[in-house]
C-alpha cells in the first residue's frame, strides 16, 4: 500500500479514539464534567480523559488563559506527540472575552499556539462541545487539522510571542 492510503487509514482510526488531556483551564472546565459523565457521555464517541500529555491527542483550552497558566499549557503542548489538536472553548481565547482588559490574561490564543477549532459561547453548552468534537473528528479524517505542523514550521515566531507575554512586554533587546 502506498503512504497516502496508510495515512488515511490511520487518520480514520485516530479519529475514533481521541484522548483528551485532562488539563482544563478556566471556567470552561465546569461544562466538561457533564460531557464526560453519564448525562452526555462522550465515551460514545470514543473519547476519554487522559492524565498524561504524552498519550493525549487533544488539548482543550476551556476558557481564559492567564500568563502563568499559558506557560504550563505550552509546556504540556510541547510534550504531546504529533499529531495533536487544540480546541479553544468560549469567547476568551477568541478575542479576550470578559477579561479583555485584564492585566493578567492573554487575549488571542492563536498568537501563542495554533488553534484548530474555535467554539462560541460563554460557556459553551455540552451540545456545543459534542458538536465541536464531531467537527474535529471530521477535520482529522480529511486531514485538515494541521495546527501542529504550523507550530513546528513557525516555531521561532511562536516562541518569540510567548516570550513577550511571559515577560509582560519587558523583553531585553
Amino acid at each position: 500500500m502506498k503512504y497516502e492510503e496508510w495515512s488515511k487509514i490511520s487518520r480514520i482510526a485516530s479519529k475514533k479514539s481521541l484522548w483528551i488531556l485532562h488539563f482544563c483551564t478556566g471556567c470552561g472546565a465546569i461544562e466538561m464534567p457533564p460531557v464526560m459523565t453519564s448525562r452526555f457521555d462522550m465515551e460514545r464517541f470514543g473519547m476519554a480523559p487522559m492524565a498524561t500529555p504524552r498519550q493525549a491527542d487533544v488539548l482543550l483550552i476551556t476558557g481564559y488563559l492567564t500568563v502563568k497558566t499559558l506557560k504550563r499549557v505550552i509546556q504540556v503542548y510541547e510534550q504531546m506527540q504529533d499529531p495533536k489538536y487544540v480546541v479553544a472553548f468560549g469567547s476568551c481565547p477568541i478575542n479576550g472575552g470578559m477579561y479583555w482588559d485584564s492585566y493578567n490574561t492573554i487575549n488571542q490564543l492563536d498568537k501563542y499556539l495554533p488553534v484548530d477549532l474555535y467554539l462560541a459561547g460563554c460557556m459553551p453548552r455540552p451540545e456545543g462541545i459534542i458538536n465541536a468534537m464531531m467537527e474535529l473528528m471530521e477535520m482529522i479524517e480529511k486531514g485538515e487539522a494541521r495546527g501542529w505542523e504550523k507550530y513546528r514550521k513557525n516555531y521561532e515566531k511562536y516562541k518569540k510571542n510567548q516570550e513577550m507575554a511571559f515577560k509582560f512586554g519587558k523583553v531585553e533587546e
Partner: protein
Amino acid sequence: MSVIKPLKAWKHLLKRPHTIRYPYQEHVDMEGKRLPTEVLRGFHSNDLEKCIGCKMCGMICMNDAISYEEIPELEVEKGKKIRPIIDYGRCCYCGLCTEVCPTGSLKLTPNFKLIDVDREKFRFMPTQLNVKRDDYMVDENAILFSPEEYKEKVKGNK
C-alpha cells in the same frame, strides 16, 4: 457500615441509561420539554428596519464587543444609519444590551452553535435572518454575514 450494600449499584445494569444520545437524540428535561427553550441567551437577532442606531447597546456593553457599521440603504432617522456588529470573541451573552435597547429590536435568540476554524467568523452583524424559529440550530446558509456581504444582500433586495 456495609460491604454488601454498595453492590446495589449493579441493579442499574438492567435499567435504561439516562444518557442523552446527542446529536442523535434531543436534549430534553425531566418533563420531556425540549431544551434549549426560548429563554436561552444565545446569539443576537436584530430587526434592522426597527433599529435606530442609537448606540445604547455599545455603551452598556462592558466587553467592548459591539462596534458599528454604516449601512446607507437603511436610514430610518436622519443621520442614524449605523447598525451594531457583535464580536462573539468578546460577548458574554449577558443580555444587558437587549435590556437597554429602546426600540426592542435587539434580542437574544436560543441559537448557540457556532464552530469554526477562522477567528474572524466570530464577528458578524446580527439580523433577523439569524433566527430560524422552528429549529434552534443555526442555519448554515442564513447566518453569519460579514458587513460587506450584508450590504450586498440588502442592495439585491431593493
